[in-house]
């Protein structure tokens, strides 16, 4: 079931002013159905015309609330940042096919780059609930532009990489992952910029991997076929419907 409902904004605060925001929304129906890795299509204002796909960051089914973590990019996300408590927000969701959550025999590895960390938090919570032990690698550009680390610390051991080395290991998440011992893991999940995902895919022989992809979306509903990505078998699949989460082995990035 997909809902188009108005949620009520409970809070909408910058984590880093003009850059990263966290919004909490009361919307029972969507909260009730949401699974890790799913996303919303949000109407942010009269312009932009299109809704904007934003991952579900956290869900509280009991309270009937969902949270989103978002980064200001252009007009749409700017509009989001200007919304005030108690305002209504026009949501469609939950959308897409999320991450696999079950009890695995070994540990789970969560790898997030930049705002790509957003869908991993709810995933981590649910994996933990399912009894898994979790390790998390987060990549940012610098200490000042890092965020939400405190959230991830609650669900497992967190390792950080920053491009400028101002926090954690210097470099991208690749700097943490190279020479990694994958023996104690049997499941990995990643979301982040395409170059990062490309690299992660090279680890697919060591680890059973799920990747959450991005693509430009028209409808978010599977109708317009704009959001496709190439599969290993040469077919295109819809990121909004069959994805955003795919098996690393399914996808190819060579386009």
């Amino acid at each position, binding site marked *: 079931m997909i*809902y*188009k409902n108005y949620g009520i904004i409970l809070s909408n605060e910058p984590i880093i002013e003009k850059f990263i925001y966290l919004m909490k929304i009361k919307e029972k129906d969507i909260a009730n159905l949401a699974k890790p890795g799913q996303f919303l299509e949000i109407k942010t204002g009269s312009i932009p*015309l299109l809704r904007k796909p934003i991952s579900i960051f956290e869900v509280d089914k009991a309270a009937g609330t969902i949270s989103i973590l978002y980064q200001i990019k252009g007009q749409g996300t700017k509009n989001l940042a200007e919304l005030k408590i108690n305002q209504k927000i026009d949501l469609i969701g939950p959308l897409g096919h999320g991450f696999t959550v079950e009890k695995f025999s070994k540990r789970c590895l969560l790898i997030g780059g930049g705002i790509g960390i957003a869908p991993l938090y709810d995933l981590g919570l649910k994996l933990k609930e399912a009894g898994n032990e979790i390790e998390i690698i987060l990549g940012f550009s610098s200490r000042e532009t890092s965020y939400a680390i405190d959230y991830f610390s609650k669900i497992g051991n967190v390792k950080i990489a920053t491009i400028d080395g101002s926090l954690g290991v210097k470099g991208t998440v690749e700097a943490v992952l190279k020479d990694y011992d994958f023996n104690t893991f049997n499941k990995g999940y990643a979301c982040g910029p395409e170059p990062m995902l490309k690299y992660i895919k090279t680890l697919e022989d060591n680890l059973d991997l799920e990747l959450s992809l991005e693509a430009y979306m028209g*409808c978010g509903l599977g*109708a*317009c*076929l*704009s*959001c*496709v990505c190439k599969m290993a078998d040469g077919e295109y699949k819809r990121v909004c419907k069959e994805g955003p989460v795919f098996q690393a082995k399914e996808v190819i990035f060579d386009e």
Partner: protein
Amino acid sequence: MNKLECILGNFKMKNPVTVASGTFGSGKEFKDFYDLALLGGIMVKGTTPEKKVGNKPQRLVETSGGIINSIGLANGGVDDFIKNILPEARNYGTEIIVNISGSSIDDYGYMAERLSIEGVSALEVNISCPNVKEGGITFGTDPQMAYEVAKMVKKNTSKPIIMKLSPNVSNIAIMAQAVESGGADIISMINTLIGMAIDIEKQKPVINNIIGGYSGPPIKPVALRMVYEVYKAVNIPIIGMGGIMNTNDALEFIMAGASAISVGTGNFVDPYIPINIIKGLEAFLDKKGLTSYTQIIGIAHK
């Protein structure tokens, strides 16, 4: 009496509100929002003789208040449509209008014949695609080719034929007359304007296919003008579309001469737009004390 009953020559719909091809899948994707039986009809996404994987992404971008798309007619082909999509769609309780495309005149004939089956209410013929045999000229920009497509489709089916006009022409009235004399029962218009956007950081076109179809609110004035011109030029009914987002937009098209309307890009913005328009038209008629929406078709010409 049903104030919105819509009779387009040999084709009837319970109301004049449809959803445009390529923006509504086959309907399935919108089933959670409302009962599809409320719609006048669904123009299902473009179907071709063979399966097409479609264009390399990026396929769509928002620009200038509208969107540009170049999906490349991605679809499973007509056999897949008949086997896997139609059986479900025909039970939606609304008219199923199959949008067909080809790369030769024969393709259109083949499609028309294959789709002359139960469950298909009408055929909408998309001629905004290149005629591969004739050097890639778009069928819809050449009156003679458009005429021949209409004739070929007509020969191969007894279903109502809706010829869908491309707006990228010097003289839309001539195109309309061409398809009318080729045997079109109905005209739908407009397909997308051809447009482009450039990513100034990457210094290249945003859409991988370079150009694409421009749709949404910005194209409405062009669409309205063309509906107005075609209404004067032909005797067959028009299904108007292009940037329709609400009841007022729909009324503009009807007053310009459209006997039915279609919501395209609007479905991405708010899936309830078609339903809101159905309610809105009823409310408008009540307010004006009219007994049928047909009383205002083309009224702007008076």
